[in-house]
């Protein structure tokens, strides 16, 4: 079969004009326009560019939601099997538009999409995680070189074949860590890497260090007396039986449980779901991890106004940072809506 591909390009590559025509609204042209020629040649008979969607970079940048909506509609009308956008080279607004279009196509139409850019194009950082971006030179002089990997990768995606590594296939890394088997065991690689490092020879780390977020702490409460305080834990304390099935590690969810009226977490009613530590002591008395008992005392003594009725809990064991960040954002919103003044975060 021959796949039906729609090509997205800007007003410049469509031959409509330069910056003065950047306000061009989305329009659909049957068949191949501009750089689509080279792509079509590369596809051979495996895929056909059935239509080209053109949009002015200025219009897209200023009307992103509306433009995207229109473009998706146009593409859908073509019964496309896949979308290819650009190459955008180092054109920033064009790159952003290509990335946004590919992402929307993947999300909304659930068909493969890819684009191509120069690595420093701002569209790369914005969309590399969402969409495949083939690496190009910084200008249209690099078109000939960009086309073969664009075509080859799109065909692999269409055929459901697994992609090779970015450097092998020619796309920019998406920042996803993927397992593979190397030729040598880890210890051998470590020893070889050390020898190279000591000799001053080039070597490649297998895990470039990330830069960590540092969150500045919120200002301290001036007065505890009137404060509503909530408990949030990554120690996995849950009602016994773990009703929401929070995973023992790599948690994909968190729980929200009501402790109004509860002044002590007993082993009859609470336990930990955490798989990263010996649960003997947490299961014996869950207050050790989530100190409801002490906070109730302090509440009675009037040290603060109220312990929030709900507590939030997840398992911080091998749980990806990205997942944890999402939990944090969601829980923070709920706590703010509930007019909570401060949170005590407990770990294990």
């Amino acid at each position: 079969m021959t796949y039906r591909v729609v090509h997205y390009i800007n007003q410049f590559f469509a031959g409509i004009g330069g910056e003065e025509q950047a306000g061009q609204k989305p329009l659909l042209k049957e068949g191949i326009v501009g750089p689509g020629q080279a792509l079509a040649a590369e596809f051979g008979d495996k895929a056909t560019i059935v239509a080209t969607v053109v949009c002015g970079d200025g219009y897209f940048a200023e009307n992103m939601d509306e433009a995207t909506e229109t473009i998706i509609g146009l593409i859908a009308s073509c019964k496309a099997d896949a979308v290819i956008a650009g190459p955008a080279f180092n054109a920033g607004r064009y790159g952003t538009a290509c990335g946004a279009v590919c992402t929307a196509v993947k999300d909304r139409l659930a068909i493969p999409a890819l684009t191509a850019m120069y690595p420093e194009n701002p569209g790369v950082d914005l969309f590399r995680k969402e969409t495949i971006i083939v690496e190009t030179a910084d200008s249209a002089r690099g078109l000939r070189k960009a086309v073969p990997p664009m075509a080859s990768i799109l065909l692999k995606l269409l055929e459901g074949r697994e992609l090779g590594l970015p450097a092998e296939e020619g796309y920019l890394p998406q920042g996803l860590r993927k397992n593979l088997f190397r030729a040598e065991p880890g210890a051998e690689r470590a020893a070889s890497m050390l020898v190279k490092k000591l000799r001053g020879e080039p070597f490649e780390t297998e895990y470039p260090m990330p830069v960590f977020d540092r969150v500045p702490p919120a200002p301290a409460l001036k007065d505890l007396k009137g404060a509503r305080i909530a408990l949030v834990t990554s120690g996995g304390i849950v009602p016994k039986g773990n009703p929401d099935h929070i995973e023992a590690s790599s948690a994909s969810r968190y729980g929200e449980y009501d402790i109004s009226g509860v002044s002590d977490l007993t082993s009859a009613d609470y336990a930990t779901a955490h798989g990263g530590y010996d649960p003997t002591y947490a299961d014996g008395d869950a207050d050790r991890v989530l100190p409801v008992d002490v906070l109730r005392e302090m509440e009675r003594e009037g040290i603060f106004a109220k312990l929030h009725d709900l507590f939030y809990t997840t398992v911080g064991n091998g749980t990806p940072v990205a997942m944890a960040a999402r939990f944090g954002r969601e829980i923070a919103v709920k706590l703010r809506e509930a007019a909570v003044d401060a949170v005590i975060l407990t770990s294990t």
Partner: protein
Amino acid sequence: MKLELHRLKVRRLAWGSRTAFDKGLLSIDRSALTDLLAKDGRFRSVTLDLALPGESVRIIPVKDVIEPRCKLDGPGEVFPGFIGDVETVGEGATLVLEGAAVVTCGAIVGFQEGIIDMSGPGADYTPFSKTCNLVVTFEPVDGLEKHEYEAACRMAGFRAARYLADSVRDVAAETIDTVQWPPLSEAMTAHPGLPKVAYLYMLQSQGLLHDTYLYGVDVKRILPTLVSPTEVMDGAVVSGNCVSACDKNSTYAHQNNPVIAALLARHGREINFVGCIVTNENVTLADKKRSSAAAVKLARMLGVEGLVISEEGFGNPDADLIMNCRRAEAAGIRTVLITDEFAGSDGASQSLADAAPEATAVVSVGNANARVVLPPMERVIGFPREANVIAGGFDGSMRDDGSIEVELQAITGATNELGFSRLSAVTV
């Protein structure tokens, strides 16, 4: 210190009327060994099974794996502090039943034991699908406290491993490897021109069943010190660790520490490997700083230019790993780290709980969050339902057809941070 490893290559296991070795076949006297292990009154039952490479067999939940060894000659006995006495080991001759392993199996913490598949996709990830395994499954007497249960299983594993080797001690070795480990007074003048290198050997010691033992001493109680490679080969370091199966160092991995092997292989050619520094991974910041400072002090004392640093576990110990790296690099000692990753099942998350720009040379032994589907097996040894609560498993991991979808985390040794396997990860 000079240690000879007398190797017999085990290619098959079978039950026999006595424990004996003949042409690759290790016959095991099932009742004699069962009786030996059942003497420990803490077990309600002791069951022995065989699991061979390529068989449609799943072992779950796996606590530890131990290579059968015993001393033939020289002071002490393998697993000092547990078997025999507390003598310094690493000299003389040690019998190694290469290719065989004792796998201990018991639901101690439930979600902190692992899975070994002897065939299928899971077998690619565990080193112990390639060994001929004697599986020992323990059930505790009623009411046995978890820490006692762990101690009982630990001892039983060592006893079984030593029993197998000791029973065939009179068989002549097929191959003999000799490791000659000189005192520092010689090592420091040997191999002029080659960079001096040491191994910083981090041992899990967070406590509450995250324990490692050195000569029988829980290492959370020590300050860093020096051991020689041959001591490690004789079982001076053993696991008492119940944590995610992928990256806890089994006793087998300690006995066959691949970092030591890799450094010895380059010794005298590319590097001058002068020592192993053992340190721990404790939970308080003061303990972390103290051990890190003391470990790097020993590296400075040795005057090495480079260190390989291996981690055990993930999360909290990442902080120890990074601290050791920063301190060593600040002291002018070049480092290479070995760690696994927890980057999420999609690989999109940060992989470590701590990071530092000084960590320029990292070996990744894989993303333990990656998922794999383990198809049903004809035979399951142990307690298969544990898959639902095992770390790396999730509710529903165990499917009706007997297949299991789990993270690599649940597979014994999948991301061993001594660098035992070829698994790694890259950014795509």
